[in-house]
């Protein structure tokens, strides 16, 4: 099986599993009493944010490997990861305000976490605009690698922004030094969703990489 069909199958399986996440989150996971049903947005918003950050980390890593090894496969992989990251960022930036409005009373606030994640989204967009604007493949790959590395440097600031600044955004409840602070049913749904979003990322990137290769 070549890369493109493998990616299509992975994506199809991941989308079916995503339907399973929907059923589990909506029907078999308890509703949080203080936030109500809106809290269930958590099972999509957090894994989407994870996938967006994973995409950006791998765009940066692909850029570093390209600059050192001069192998254009790393550049193609970074380009694929950036496009997929834009999609996950879009999910994160639409589900976030839909969760914020009923809980915080506002769709958006310019605090550190939200502003830095918006900046990551603009970096994804900028990365793709840059690739479209530079005709020479060698220069395009080099400039793109630099933008990708900037995105990689941004990631720790996004993660630590809730500790470094006063922000409305809650602190991590899973990716933290102590044990996750969630009831087991909610934690299992979240971890399953993390796995499905990661599989979806893999399926999308494999497909997108295959499209880039055939150009």
């Amino acid at each position, binding site marked *: 099986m070549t890369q*493109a069909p493998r*990616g*299509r199958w992975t*994506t*199809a399986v991941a*989308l079916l599993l*995503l339907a399973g996440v*929907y059923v589990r989150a*909506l029907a078999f996971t308890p*509703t949080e*009493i*203080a*936030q*109500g*049903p*809106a809290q*269930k*947005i958590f099972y*999509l*918003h957090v894994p*989407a944010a994870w996938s967006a950050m994973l995409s950006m980390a791998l765009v940066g890593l692909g850029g570093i490997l390209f600059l050192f090894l001069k192998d254009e496969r790393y550049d193609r992989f970074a380009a694929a990861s950036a496009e997929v990251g834009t*999609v996950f960022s*879009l*999910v994160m930036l*639409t*589900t976030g305000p*839909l*969760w914020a*409005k*009923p809980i915080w009373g506002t769709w958006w606030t310019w605090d550190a976490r939200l502003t830095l994640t918006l900046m990551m989204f603009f970096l994804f967009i900028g990365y793709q605009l840059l690739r479209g604007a530079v005709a020479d493949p060698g220069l395009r790959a080099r400039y793109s690698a630099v933008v990708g590395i900037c995105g990689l440097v941004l990631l720790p600031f996004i993660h630590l922004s809730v500790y470094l600044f006063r922000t409305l955004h809650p602190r991590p409840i899973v990716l933290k030094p102590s044990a996750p602070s969630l009831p087991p049913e909610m934690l299992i749904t979240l971890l399953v969703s993390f796995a499905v979003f990661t599989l*979806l990322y893999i399926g*999308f990137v494999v*497909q*997108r990489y*295959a*499209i880039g290769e*055939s*150009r």
Partner: protein
Amino acid sequence: MIETPHNSAFMVAAYIVTAVILVGYAFVLARRARGRSR
């Protein structure tokens, strides 16, 4: 005692938007792959 807020419309909207974006992108990728293979 805390009364659970009625805000399920936001939850439904988020679940629909997510499905539309992810399934939509899967279709876009499939179409682009078909276009390339022709």
